[in-house]
């Protein structure tokens, strides 16, 4: 799929979830054996148009995520290219055993799409927030995990996941009217991080909505005399260790994720860095090990230091400690 400015703009207005529905319509015209399975979330996943245009390629299993993963595996074994979707906690943890056996152990080619992950559902409470999905799935062998930075990257990742031979978890975050990171077409490859900003002092490795915030942070830091690189680590597993390995000469490495500080991007980078004797310190920015308060999205991002300004402040603080 070729991205252009107009597409990127129109997708960013509707957000990653609705973009998913729109991209599936495109894919349905190309892929005969495509199947999209929803656990009673067609509207939330932006699939209402898809559902009426491609009745044969759509299946609703009702509110039954375990069954959804089994059915997806059965269809995949007969050659279908299957996408499943529900809200992120239900798409990942409600059916975790099915994911482990059917997708991990058996290696079934199914792409799971977790909706509204992170903190965007803050006002609905912690049942609907999701900051453990990456940690939980990352420990299961064989599952590729992708968190796209914006709607254009979500579209790229959906197409890449469809071509990928194994199971994928696509973690969609943000609300509607999401910031644009990728306005024009670019090369997206699963497992290959993208350097968005060069910088000599600090390297900020982030993904999802935290890419835009990290770019804002990088601008603020620049004004304060700190040169901060920004890397889009859209694929958390397999981690692009080659790219991380090139950042060892920085004074500080920072990871930023809309996820628990346990088990996610920060953990993955820390696991890799721990092998090196000579390496910069690592600051992991994310949600602390606790359930979050009930609040609006932006407020929660502020509270957990996940906005451009708060990220810049945290990075400055960490830099000061170095001296």
């Amino acid at each position, binding site marked *: 799929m070729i991205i252009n400015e107009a597409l990127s703009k129109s997708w960013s207005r509707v957000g990653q979830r609705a973009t998913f529905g729109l991209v599936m319509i495109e894919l349905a015209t190309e892929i005969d054996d495509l199947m999209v399975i929803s656990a009673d979330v067609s509207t939330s996943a932006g699939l209402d148009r898809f559902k009426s245009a491609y009745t*044969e390629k759509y*299946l609703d*299993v*009702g509110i*039954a995520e*375990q*069954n959804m*993963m*089994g*059915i*997806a*595996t*059965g*269809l*995949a*074994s*007969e*050659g*279908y290219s299957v996408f499943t979707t529900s809200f992120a906690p239900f798409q990942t943890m409600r059916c975790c*055993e*099915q994911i*482990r*056996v*059917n997708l991990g*152990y*058996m290696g079934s080619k199914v792409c799971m799409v977790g909706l509204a992950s992170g903190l965007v559902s803050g006002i609905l409470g912690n049942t609907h927030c999701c900051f453990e999905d990456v940690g939980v799935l990352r420990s299961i062998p064989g599952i590729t995990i992708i968190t796209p930075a914006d709607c254009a990257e979500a579209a790229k990742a959906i197409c890449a996941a469809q071509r990928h031979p194994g199971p994928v978890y696509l973690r969609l975050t943000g609300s509607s009217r999401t910031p644009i990171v990728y306005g024009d077409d670019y090369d997206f490859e699963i497992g290959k991080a993208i350097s968005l900003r060069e910088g000599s002092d600090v390297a900020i490795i982030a993904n999802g909505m935290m890419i835009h915030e990290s770019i804002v942070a990088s601008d603020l830091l620049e004004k304060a005399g700190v040169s901060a690189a920004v890397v889009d680590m859209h694929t958390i597993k397999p981690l692009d260790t080659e790219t991380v390995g090139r950042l060892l000469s920085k004074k500080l490495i920072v990871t930023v994720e809309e996820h628990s500080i346990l088990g996610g991007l920060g953990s993955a980078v820390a696991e890799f860095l721990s092998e090196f004797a000579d390496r910069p310190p690592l600051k992991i920015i994310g949600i602390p090990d606790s359930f979050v308060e009930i609040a609006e999205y932006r407020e929660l991002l502020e509270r957990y230091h996940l906005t451009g300004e708060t990220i810049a402040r945290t990075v400055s603080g960490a830099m000061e400690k170095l001296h």
Partner: protein
Amino acid sequence: MESGVLTKSLIRDIEDMAARMRKSALDMAFSARGSASHIGAGMSIIDILAVLYGGVMKLNKSDPLWGGRDRFILSKGHGVLGYYAALAEVGYLSKKDLETFEKPGTFLAGHPVKNLERGIEFTNGSLGMGLSLGVGVALAMKKKGNANKVYVLMGDGECNEGSVWEAVMSAAQFKLDNLVAIADCNSFQLGGRNEDIMSVGDMAEKARSFGWSAVTVDGHDAERLYESLTASYEKCKPLMIAAMTIKGKGFSLFESDNRWHHAMISKSQYDSLTGELERPRQL
């Protein structure tokens, strides 16, 4: 191999196959030596498997990957003693393969691992997941206009898992009359009798209440099993066969004694059980 017509000789062939399978299963359990195997649940399904693999299912003995095959899913994955014995009867596994059962490096683990070249359609062992797989495969068959059937063998204890009932509900919703679930009702689960732990009650009645066709049969009567699996049922409804079985069936030592749920067989026990198998069958 096309599914056959019910004749006395076919039934006799199936019964002979079941007898050979019990011997294979016993040999596998004994040869595993230091490692225990699921004896009770392996033996209770042997007659069901003999009817499926020896008569009902469309298979190609020389090509396990043949597209026209009926699909079989062992949802109660711990029933491998019966399953591997059936695959050996069809020719997908060799006697030598069976000798590797539960030995380090084997592809015949204590629970089946997907291996299409050897006729194993799916990985199973975590209970309550096979019927959902069957629903997915049955949907695929319908979509492709493929007339094949999908058979899922479950345990009665397994039906404690809530995911089974998600799948039961969906099979009726999707009108999967190409899906057949067989519940091996051997009345026991790991910890004891179903009625003392968690009873599913009348399996056929429950399935009917979900919109399935359902029959209850003697799970060791090849003729009844064959008839119930090949009879005509209402269109648009999946079929549940509640097969009443005896855990450990075929060996006096094992029958309805849950100590043989997962156990090892000693040399003297093996010798006496083999002798039991060799005694002429009552005609």
